[in-house]
C-alpha cells in the first residue's frame, strides 16, 4: 500500500530547508552554551550538545520512517494515536519521574522522555480528524463541546503533573479554531483580555490605565475617521490630569498618580458626553462604557489578587508570572537572561565568545533560555534573523495548509502553525521579559530529546501529508 512517489518533486523543500537552518543554528547555540575547553569532541553524549546531536540524528531517522508510512495512517489512526498519548499521560502520573517539581517524565530503556511533548501532535491530529468529518461545522454546540473536550483532557492531565507551561500551550488551538469558523470577536477579546490581565499583573495600575486610554482614543479616531477628534480628546484628558495633579495637594489629598488619573478621566468623560450630545458624535458612550468596563476588569483582577488571595496563593501566582521568586529561580533567570541578551549589542559578542551565558549566569541556558545565547553571541542581527526564519517557516506552513485539498491535512497544518507559533513567540517573549516565564522550550533550539523529536514529527507529518496532496482528495 505504500505509494511510490517522486520524493524530490513532491516534498516541500522550502519547509525542509527552513527546518534544517533552524536545527543547525539551534545546535550551534547549544554547543556554545555548554561549551568549555575541557570537552571538545562534539560527539561526547555526556555533554548537552553531543546528546542533542544524537537526538537530531534520531529525528532524521524518524523523518525517513514517516515517509515510509502510508500517508493515510495519520487520518485513520488519529484517534488511536490520541488515545495512546492520553494513556501515556496517565502512566506518567502513575510511574513518572519528578524533575523540577513536576512529574512529567517516563524512563524507557534508560532514556528520559516527556509524553506531554507528543500529546500536542496527537491532539492536533484528533482535532483535524474530527473537524474534517462529513458535514461537521465547528460553530455548533456539539462540535465545539467535542473539540474543547479533545483539548481539555490532555490539558487537565498535564496540569496534574503539574506543568502549567505545557498545559498553556494548548490554548494555541484558538488560532486553528478561528480559521475553522470561530467568530473573530472571540479571538480578539481573548487576546485583548489576556494582554490586559498580564499588564495588570506585571505593570503598575497607572500604566495600564494610560494604555487603555490610548487604545480608546485611537479606537475613537478610527471609528469616527477624524484625527482631529482623537487629538482633542487626548488634549482634554491631558489638561484635566494636569489640573488634578496641581489640585490634589491643594485639597490636602495624598498625591497619587492613579487617583489623579481616574479623577481626570471621570471629569473628561463628562465633558465628552456633553460635547458628543451637542455635536451629535456617535459611539462615544459605547466606547466610554467599554473603557470603564476594562478599567473595572483590571481593578477587580488587582483587588482579587491583593485582597482575596492569601499570601501563599499570591506567591504562587507571582511565581507563575515570574515576578517574585527565589533568586535561584525564575526571577533570577529572567534578570540574567535580559542582561545576557541585552549585552549582545547589534552584532553580538561573536560565536563562543559569550560571557553571560557561560555556566554561572543564566541557568537553564541550554533549554528554556537558549535564546540568551543567540542574543548574546549573535546580537540583534542574529536574534532578528532567527525570528525571521521562524516567521518564514510559520508563513510557509499556513501556505502549505491552504493548498491542501484534504480538509484533514489543512486543519492539521493550522494545528502545526498554532503550536509552533505559541512556543516560538512565548519562549522568546519570556526571555526578554514580555511574557511570564512559563518554562516552555524553543522549537528546534532548546536542548532536549523529547522536544526535538516531537517538533520534528509535528512538522514532518504535515510535510508527509503535503507530499501527496495532488493524488488524493478527501
Amino acid at each position: 500500500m505504500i505509494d511510490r512517489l517522486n520524493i524530490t518533486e513532491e516534498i516541500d523543500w522550502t519547509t525542509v530547508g527552513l527546518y534544517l537552518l533552524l536545527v543547525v543554528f539551534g545546535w550551534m547555540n547549544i554547543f556554545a552554551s555548554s561549551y568549555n575547553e575541557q570537552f571538545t569532541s562534539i560527539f561526547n553524549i555526556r555533554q548537552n550538545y553531543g546528546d542533542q546531536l544524537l537526538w537530531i540524528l534520531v529525528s532524521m531517522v524518524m523523518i525517513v520512517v514517516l515517509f515510509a508510512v502510508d500517508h493515510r495512517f495519520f487520518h485513520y489512526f488519529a484517534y488511536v494515536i490520541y488515545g495512546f498519548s492520553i494513556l501515556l499521560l496517565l502512566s506518567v502520573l502513575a510511574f513518572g519521574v519528578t524533575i523540577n517539581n513536576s512529574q512529567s517524565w517516563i524512563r524507557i530503556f534508560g532514556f528520559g522522555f516527556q509524553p506531554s511533548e507528543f500529546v500536542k501532535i496527537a491532539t492536533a491530529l484528533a482535532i483535524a480528524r474530527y473537524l474534517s468529518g462529513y458535514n461537521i461545522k465547528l460553530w455548533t454546540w456539539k462540535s465545539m463541546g467535542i473539540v474543547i473536550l479533545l483539548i481539555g483532557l490532555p490539558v487537565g492531565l498535564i496540569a496534574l503533573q503539574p506543568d502549567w507551561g505545557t498545559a498553556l500551550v494548548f490554548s494555541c488551538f484558538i488560532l486553528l479554531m478561528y480559521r475553522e469558523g470561530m467568530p473573530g470577536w472571540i479571538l480578539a477579546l481573548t487576546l485583548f483580555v489576556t494582554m490586559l490581565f498580564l499588564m495588570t499583573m506585571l505593570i503598575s495600575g497607572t500604566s495600564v490605565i494610560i494604555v487603555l486610554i490610548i487604545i480608546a482614543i485611537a479606537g475613537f479616531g478610527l471609528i469616527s475617521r477624524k484625527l482631529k477628534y482623537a487629538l482633542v480628546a487626548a488634549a482634554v484628558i491631558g489638561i484635566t490630569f494636569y489640573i488634578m495633579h496641581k489640585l490634589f495637594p491643594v485639597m490636602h489629598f495624598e498625591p497619587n498618580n492613579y487617583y489623579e488619573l481616574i479623577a481626570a478621566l471621570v471629569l473628561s468623560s463628562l465633558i465628552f458626553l456633553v460635547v458628543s450630545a451637542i455635536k451629535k458624535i456617535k459611539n462615544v458612550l459605547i466606547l466610554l462604557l467599554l473603557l470603564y468596563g476594562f478599567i473595572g476588569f483590571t481593578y477587580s483582577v488587582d483587588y482579587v489578587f491583593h485582597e482575596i488571595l492569601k499570601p501563599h496563593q499570591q506567591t504562587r501566582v507571582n511565581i507563575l508570572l515570574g515576578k517574585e521568586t527565589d533568586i535561584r529561580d525564575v526571577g533570577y533567570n529572567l534578570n540574567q537572561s535580559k542582561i545576557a541578551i541585552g549585552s549582545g549589542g547589534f552584532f553580538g559578542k561573536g560565536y563562543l565568545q559569550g560571557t553571560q551565558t557561560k555556566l554561572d549566569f543564566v541557568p537553564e541556558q541550554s533549554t528554556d533560555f537558549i535564546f540568551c545565547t543567540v542574543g548574546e553571541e549573535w546580537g540583534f542581527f542574529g536574534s532578528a534573523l532567527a525570528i525571521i526564519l521562524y516567521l518564514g517557516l510559520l508563513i510557509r506552513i499556513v501556505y502549505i495548509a491552504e493548498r491542501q485539498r484534504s480538509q484533514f491535512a489543512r486543519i492539521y497544518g493550522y494545528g502545526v502553525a498554532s503550536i509552533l507559533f505559541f512556543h516560538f513567540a512565548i519562549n522568546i517573549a519570556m526571555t526578554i521579559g514580555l511574557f511570564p516565564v512559563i518554562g516552555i522550550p524553543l522549537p528546534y533550539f532548546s536542548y532536549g530529546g523529547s522536544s526535538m523529536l516531537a517538533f520534528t514529527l509535528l512538522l514532518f507529518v504535515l510535510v508527509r501529508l503535503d507530499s501527496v496532496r495532488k493524488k488524493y482528495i478527501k
Partner: protein
Amino acid sequence: MDQFASRRNIIAGIFILAALALIIRLFYIQVIDSSYKLSAENNSQRVEILYPARGLIFDRNGKLLVFNQPSYDLMIAPYELRQFDSVEFCSILRIDLKRLREGIARVRIPRYRREPFIKQISPETYAILQEKLYKYPGFYVRSRTLRRYSKEMAAHLFGYVGEVDEKLIEKEKAYVMGDYIGISGIEGYYENMLKGEKGQEVLLVDVHGRVKGPYQDGRFDKDAVVGKDLVCTIDADLQEYGETLMKNYRGSVVAIEPSTGEILSLISAPSYNPSLLVGRSRTGNYTRLRQDTLLKPLYNRALMANYPPGSTFKPIQALIGLQEGVISEGSSFSCNMGFYARGVSVGCHDHKSPLTLLHGIEQSCNAYFCNVYKRIIENPKYSRPDEAYNVWRDYVLSFGIGQKLSSDFTNELRGFIAPVSYYDKYYGSNHWNALTTISLAIGQGEILVTPLQMANWTAAIANRGYYVTPHVVKSIEGMDTIDHKFTQKHFIEIDTANFRLVVAGMDMAVNGGPGRTAGIAQLQNIRVCGKTGTAQNPHGTDHSVFIAFAPKDNPKIAISVYVEHGEWGASYAAPIASLMIEKYLTDSIAPNRKWVEARILNGNLLYSK
C-alpha cells in the same frame, strides 16, 4: 475554498505582528538601552554559600567530645584574575611560584566557575592574607568549619567527615561539589541531623570582583542553620580507659547498659587518632592508615570482625537445652579429658567428673556441652536432626546472632550461623547429625559473631530474657525521642527461671570455688557474672574471650572483650573486662587490683601471631 479561507491573512498578520513586537523589543534592549551592557560588565550578582557548622557531640554525662574549628578555603575566580604581585602572594601562602602557576593553569578550565585554589589554609595564614586580599582580585576566602576532638579517642565510633565525590552526588541529589558529608560512625548515620542547612548571601559585585553590598537589601539572603547537637550513650571516661587498656592489643571491647541497650563504650584496637582524618591531611593520612595491613587501624573490629565465640557461647547452649527440656539443673555428664563418640573427639581440660549444669558452666566443661548439644539435636521430639537443628538455630538467632542488629552504625556485619542448606550441601540432606556438627556445642565451627553481638547477648542474659537494640545516640537536640526501634524490647522465648540458672553458673565461674575459670574477674563489692572463652585459632595462638555483666542483680553493664592471640579467656580478656566494670561502677581501680591493671598495661600482643 471555504468561506473562512480569507482568515489565513489575519492569522499570518498575527504571526507577523508578534514577530515584529519581538524584534522591536530586542532592538530596544540590545541596541538602544545600554543599561544591560553595564549590568553584564558589572556582572551584578554573586551568590555566596554560607556553610553551617556541624552539630556537636556530647557524651552521656554531658562532656563535649566533638566540636568545630574554623577553616578557610582560598577560592579563585579565574575570570576576575588581574595582574598581581605573585612573589608576595606566594610568600604569604608559603607556596612556590611553580605551584601558583600550576594552580592557575588548572582552574582556567572552565573559566567562569569559582573554585577552591588551596583548601583549608591555616588560621594564621588567613590572618595575614585577609589584610592583603584586596591586592589579589580573583582570590577570595570562603570560611568553613572542620571537626575537632576534645580527646583523641573513639575514632571508629565518631566516624569522620569528608568531601562528597561525584559518585555520591549522583546518588544523593541534595549534595553539591564541595559539600562535606559524614562518612561513617555517628557522623555517617546521623548525617541528616548533624549537617545543618546551608544558607546563602547574594551580593552585588562589580567587574573587579569587589563586593558593593547586598543584592536587593538582602532579600534573598538566608542564614545557615547550625546542625543539631547529639548526646551519645558513650561514657567518655570508660571509653578512654578501655582504649588505654587495649592499646597494646588487637581486638575489641563493647560495653552496653543492659536495661536500655545504650552502648557505654565501643573499642576497636588498634585504633587511630580521629584528628588524623580531619581537613587537608585527611586523604594522605587515610591512605597511610589503609596501607597498614598488619594492624588494620581503620578496620572496626567491634562491628565487622567475625570471630568464633568459643566457650562464651556455652551459656546460650545451656539455655536452649533447659528450654527444650533435654537437660535440667540436676543433669550431670562425665568428662574424661573430653568428649568421645563414634570417631569424634572434643578435648577438655582436667577437672572433677562428673559435673552438674552449674559446675559445667563454672568450669567450662567441653564434654558437658557436647552432651547438651547432642541431646538437643537428637531430641526424639523431632523426626530428623535437621529439624532439631533448625529449632536450635532459631533460638540462637533470637539472641541477635547471625544477623545485623540494625544498630545506628552503617557498617555492622551480620556474623554467621550455618543454615540447614549449608550442611546439606556439604554432607547431603539427612547425612549429618549432632556429631558432624559437634563443634557448635562449644562455640566453634560454623558460627561467627561480632563483638557487638557478644555484648548484646550478654545484655540479654543480664536482663534474664530480653535485649534492646544496641545504639549509640541517647538524644538529639530538638527531638523528644530517639528512633522507636532503640527503645523496643526483643524478648527471647526462654523462661526466666532458666536464665536464673545460667546466671548462677556464670556467677560461679567468677565467684565460685576451686575450678572456676574466671576468678581473676572477681571484684570486692560487686558481684560479676561472666564466662570465659578460648577461641581456637588454626593460624596461631588462640584468642582470649570474655563476656560478663555486673552487678548480678539489677545489672548496670554488660561487656564483651575479645583479645586476638590472647590464648586463655582468663589471661587477657577477663582481666580487661573486670577492670572496665570496676572503672565504670566505682570510678576507680581498687589498690589490691592495681597489679591486674599493670599486667594488662605492660603486656603487648600487637605483633604476636
